[in-house]
């Protein structure tokens, strides 16, 4: 039995309501964490996990105000009686987006930030910074600028900054969200190692399957502000809704047998006589400057009507650079890109936009208008459509994404998922034939991104779709063709069933095989094609 006062974290009957809202964000939360344990708190967006974290790390009630009931104790002492300075030296927090958490222009300054705030002597700060950097294995980054570091490195820098303050508990808010699979895998190993060193590690994440790789001792599932499950890993897989939380494919496969099969009919279909080439890359090389190495080398491929292409590749492999060429946002250094037969060098981007619609990662990078109607009219107006055409296109686009009720709402006030749909509608309204999406699932939880992808692929209007992703499962579920980029070159381009079979090859290209891939491979002789686990469950006896 562990004495209550020596437990790093005990939460009892905790409820909280923000001043700005009517409903409580979390209710009656009870949990506790032991040293050396990894705890996974799973749940979809809006389930209250972020609020719970804020109660533990002191942001509630210090920065966010509202009604708090119940108790949170760190080693027996109530958080409510502690100053931020005290809490922060017991609880270290990593926020979802490491980019926004990094406060220093240089790595050294960033890691030192907390210690500087505490007013420690300079020599001690420098010593502790070096120790923390060493612990994360990034001492070599010490004098680098933070801006140029990769996503994985940024997360390690943020971790070092928190560890320098010697916390006993580590709170991680969706730590895998901004990482590619290889970096995510590495990050998880670090979390486990920190737990082994005696820290209590609390991971808030909806990517349950990934976190299970490091075997969290405790699992908590939250839904609508309450804990609905608390216990071991096995139990969670039986109770939670597998459409809300991503579980291992075999589990979904077994459980989905008892439910009705999912309905999914992509609107973009390959037919034999569809040979019209929308985009053609011919010997494309690209570099930003003569002194710099090539980012793209000898790229050759065509996008035809009926293609649903997933572009896979590690961070920095050139995925985005390649896709930008199709629209003419970048022009090849060598070789040509043809858009419906016209060289992109000879046409303006505005002309190209009539053929190719490009949706960027985050909708907030493009939304600016006071109303959704204005937002959607922006593209077609720029392209010179007549007033009637603009009106008709906007009407059709908003109906297609099912947001007709929001026509007069300000797009910036909509939810993230709605904004995402608006960004697709903005492209639809231009009547572009080809839709290209950069990381379409970024920033959304499992359920949201699946329903988003389902609806985009089933909506009429596009003749071909191309999307960039890190997520192998997304590629094999939705694409009828996969292109793998590795270090600026296309290393594979074929149907998913053809190129995903060789696991060693995939690992070489820094793509990690998933449980869904393995399940599909197992059943490929019977199915002849790749499917999501739910569909597979009904295809196989």
């Amino acid at each position, binding site marked *: 039995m562990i004495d209550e006062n020596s437990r790093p974290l005990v939460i009892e009957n905790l409820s909280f309501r923000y*001043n700005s809202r009517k409903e409580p964000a979390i209710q009656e939360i009870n949990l506790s964490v032991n040293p050396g344990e990894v705890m996974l708190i799973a749940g979809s967006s809006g389930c209250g996990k972020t609020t719970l974290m804020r109660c533990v790390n002191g942001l509630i009630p210090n920065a966010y105000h509202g009604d708090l009931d119940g108790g949170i104790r760190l080693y027996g002492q109530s958080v409510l009686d502690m100053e931020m300075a005290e809490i922060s030296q017991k609880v270290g927090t990593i926020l979802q987006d490491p980019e926004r958490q990094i406060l220093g222009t240089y790595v050294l300054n960033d890691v030192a930030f907390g210690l500087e705030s505490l007013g420690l002597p300079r020599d001690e700060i420098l010593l502790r910074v070096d120790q923390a950097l060493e612990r994360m294995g990034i001492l070599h980054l010490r004098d680098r600028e933070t801006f140029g570091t990769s996503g994985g490195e940024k997360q390690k820098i943020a971790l070092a900054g928190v560890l320098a303050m010697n916390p006993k508990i580590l709170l991680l808010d969706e730590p895998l969200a901004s990482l590619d699979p290889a970096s995510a895998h590495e990050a998880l190993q670090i979390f486990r190692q920190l737990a082994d060193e005696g820290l209590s590690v609390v991971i808030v994440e909806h990517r349950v399957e990934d976190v299970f790789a490091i075997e969290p001792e405790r699992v908590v599932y939250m839904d609508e502000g309450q804990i609905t499950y608390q216990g071991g890993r096995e139990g969670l897989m039986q109770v939670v809704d597998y459409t809300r939380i991503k579980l291992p494919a075999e589990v979904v496969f077994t459980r989905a047998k008892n439910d009705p099969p999912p309905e999914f009919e992509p609107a973009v279909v390959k037919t034999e006589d569809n040979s019209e080439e929308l985009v053609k890359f011919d010997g494309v090389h690209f570099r930003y400057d003569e002194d710099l190495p090539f980012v793209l080398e000898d790229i050759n491929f065509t996008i035809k009507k009926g293609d649903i292409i997933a572009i896979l590749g590690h961070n920095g492999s050139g995925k985005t650079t390649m896709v930008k060429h199709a629209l003419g946002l970048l022009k090849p250094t060598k070789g040509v890109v043809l858009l419906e037969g016209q060289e992109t060098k000879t046409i303006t981007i505005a002309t190209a936009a009539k053929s190719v619609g490009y949706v960027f990662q985050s909708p907030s990078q493009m939304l600016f208008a*006071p109303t959704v109607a204005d937002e959607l009219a922006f593209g077609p107006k720029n392209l010179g459509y007549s007033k009637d055409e603009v009106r008709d296109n906007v009407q059709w686009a908003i109906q297609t994404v099912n947001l007709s009720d929001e026509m007069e709402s*300000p797009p910036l006030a909509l939810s993230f998922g709605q904004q995402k749909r608006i960004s697709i509608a903005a492209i639809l309204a231009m009547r572009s034939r080809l839709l290209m999406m950069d990381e379409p699932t970024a920033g959304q939880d499992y359920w949201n991104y699946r329903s988003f992808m389902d609806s985009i692929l089933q909506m009429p209007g596009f003749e071909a779709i191309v999307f960039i992703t890190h997520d192998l499962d997304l590629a094999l579920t939705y694409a009828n063709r996969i292109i793998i980029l590795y270090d600026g070159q296309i290393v594979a381009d074929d149907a998913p069933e053809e190129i995903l079979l060789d696991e060693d090859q995939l690992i070489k290209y820094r793509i990690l095989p998933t449980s869904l891939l393995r399940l599909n491979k197992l059943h490929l002789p019977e199915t002849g094609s790749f499917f999501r686990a739910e569909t597979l469950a009904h295809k196989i006896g």
Partner: protein
Amino acid sequence: MTEKKKSIWRFGTREVVYAAIGAALYAVLGYATNMLQLPGAGNVAIRPAVVVPMFFGIAFGPIVGFITGFVGNVLSDLLSGWGFWFWWDLGNGLMGFIPGLIAAQIVDYRATKSMVMGVVFVVLAAIGGMGVASVSEMWVSGADINTVVFANFIPASMSNIINGVILLPILMVAYAAVSKRSGRT
């Protein structure tokens, strides 16, 4: 519900961040629009970035506004390699400070009354800020009042007024949609 009365002189963590981000934004936009060589019309340069300190003042108070303008201009000159011109930095700071004085009165950013107040203070800010900078120019370079008025004050303040008056309402409408998102109070 939260208390609506906000102190405009507070300078806590949130204000530090707004000021720092505002200044960086002013510098980057100023630098970028210089680079883009936007076609101007007559004597009025397209300097859309000036709306940044004005808007940050109105949204987050006079201190944030001042730092946004002052530090932003320092950084912008630094990026452009223009050196350090204290009196123009001060003038830019005032362009954020003056609108900041009405920050507490503006609750609904979409309301016509807020817009009118914002626009009035943008005009005052451009006159006050560029006035101080121009007068300082007189002191440093020994130019006479006519020169300063016609060569510095009128072109600079007119251009800032026009840019500010057009763009401030656009930012206020956008901010009205965003402002309710943050739970921090």
